[in-house]
């Protein structure tokens, strides 16, 4: 629905993901219903066929991720989306895609767990996402939107990064960002220079080399070589693609750090602290893999106190601690996900005061 200025529309985060996928030229979507992300398949089941794309409601999350694998191997842009229980099932396919160097976008609108958990917002799948999630030792690109606009922008970016680095990319959102509505500017697909997909299975014409998309490496040293190649690629990602946002960090004596919806809540808490005359800033990683380690290290050269806030019992804090200088302290405030556990800005402001005073 068009609102306000002609370019801005007021939509749910989940819908923004679907719209970005269409703009990014996503040709196939494969999914399975699960709350709180079903707006994505619903939107795409309506719009994708009109644009000549393919929508399949798969028999299972496993079916969906493997359809993604097949479509991606055949050279088109493709996406799937789910939430915790479904993302766990998809891990098999994600591991195979990583092993086969296949691009593909996976959207995880996190909900509370473990098990069936609940449909409330969670950030407790940080480890699952940033450590690869499946077997074998690999990483995937992980992007953490904190607004409906970023649901749009980072979905678009996920397609590009995934194609450039030939690895799966995940948009790691949560049910707050997925369900909330904000005004979005639906920008055009950026004119990124993408490498040619000369590896796709396409039917081998006479004289052309055979293309095989596989993850089986049995030859002496073959598997090891694959891993070293991927390590180099992860390093390249870390060197080139880290993204983050800093607010009031220049003179900060305490830096709150959080990602996704929690960072939004923290931002208001930081504003409250500033109003109260406290030198407090915010560091929000936008790429969770690659994690902006150097940015944290630089901040910690001057500011020696960080307050990591998560909607979990603490996962990103491991990466923060590994990134900051040795003499910097990282305090933690987190709440396990579930109904009623979403922290408020007022609550985080209290935590800021407590840690700020203790350091003074």
């Amino acid at each position, binding site marked *: 629905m068009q609102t306000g200025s002609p370019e801005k529309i007021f939509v749910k985060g989940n819908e923004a993901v679907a719209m970005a996928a269409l703009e990014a030229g996503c040709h196939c979507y494969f999914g399975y219903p699960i709350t709180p992300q079903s707006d994505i398949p619903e939107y795409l089941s309506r719009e994708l066929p009109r644009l000549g794309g393919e929508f399949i409601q798969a028999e299972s999350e*496993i079916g969906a991720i*493997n*359809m993604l*694998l097949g479509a991606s*191997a055949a050279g088109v842009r493709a996406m799937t989306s789910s939430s915790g229980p479904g993302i766990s099932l998809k891990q098999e396919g994600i591991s195979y895609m990583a092993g086969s160097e296949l691009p593909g976008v996976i959207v995880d609108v996190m909900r509370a767990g473990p098990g069936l958990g609940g449909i409330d917002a969670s950030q407790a799948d940080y480890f699952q996402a940033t450590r690869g999630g499946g077997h074998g030792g690999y990483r995937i690109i992980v992007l953490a939107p904190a607004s409906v606009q970023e649901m749009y922008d980072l979905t678009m970016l996920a397609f590009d990064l995934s194609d450039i680095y030939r690895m799966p990319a995940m948009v790691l959102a949560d049910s707050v960002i997925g369900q909330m509505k904000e005004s979005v500017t639906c920008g055009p697909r950026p004119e990124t220079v993408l490498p040619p997909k000369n590896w796709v299975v396409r039917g081998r014409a006479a004289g052309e080399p*055979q293309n095989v*998309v596989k993850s089986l490496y049995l030859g002496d040293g073959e598997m090891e070589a694959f891993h070293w190649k991927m390590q180099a690629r992860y390093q390249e990602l870390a060197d080139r693609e880290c993204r983050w946002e800093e607010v009031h960090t220049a003179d900060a004596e305490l830096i709150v750090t959080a990602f996704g919806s929690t960072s939004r809540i923290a931002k208001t808490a930081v504003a409250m602290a500033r109003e109260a005359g406290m030198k407090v800033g915010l560091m929000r990683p936008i790429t969770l893999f690659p994690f902006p380690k150097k940015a944290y290290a630089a901040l910690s050269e001057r500011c020696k106190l960080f307050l990591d806030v998560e909607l979990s019992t603490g996962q990103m804090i491991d990466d923060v601690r590994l990134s900051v200088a040795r003499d910097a302290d990282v305090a933690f405030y987190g709440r396990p996900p579930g109904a009623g556990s979403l922290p408020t800005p007022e609550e985080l402001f209290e935590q800021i005061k407590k840690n700020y005073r203790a350091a003074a």
Partner: protein
Amino acid sequence: MKQVFTRPESLKDVSTHFCPGCHHGSVHRLVAEALDEFGIRSETIGVASVGCSVFLYGYFDVDVIEAPHGRAPAVATGAKRARPDRIVFTYQGDGDLAAIGMSEIIHAANRGEDITVIFVNNTTYGMTGGQMAPTTLPGQKTSTSPYGRDTSKDGSPFKMAELLSNLDGVAFSARVALNSPKNVLNAKKMIKTAFRYQVEKKGFSFIEALASCPTNWGMNPLDANQRVTDEMIPYFPLGVYKNTANL
């Protein structure tokens, strides 16, 4: 001198890793002949599964995607939807298709995906060393059914060609064997029909090939061939179970 026997173009000039007497080589050859005869090698995408058939890309001179265990029909679905102008086939064993991949095969068939599935049924998990498969015959001893398959606990073997023939999305479903020249000739006809249906965009086509596994059966190739006749065909009758052209 007239050449009477040659390697199909769709097969590479290499020797296979298959055991002596194994029927995989025969099935590979018949599939390759079908691709050659329809002239579709350069538009074909093969989907390999997990098991002895994983090395499909080493023998077929076509582009190949290697699927996770049991997921070949889902992978093939993705590839075919992305490139509907290509010929897409999966090549799967009995553990892959009828155990861990049962959901994927049933749903791909039911959607009527325009793909061809070659299902090699040798009543055992070949590559992992002869464990009980979903198609292991009642009483058959394997490394995980040392007292013989007990149908009261393990259930009875799945008859996939019959099972899939009940689904509306299936255009063609047939069971063939490779243990005699007559059966091979018939198998070739059936495999060609299956690919023809895909070329003609008629829907999902399925071939179940009864195959021997002398190594895991603990038999010599001739005895293994005989077992196909004596034990397998009586339980898994050969024939066409669904042919939309006849409807």
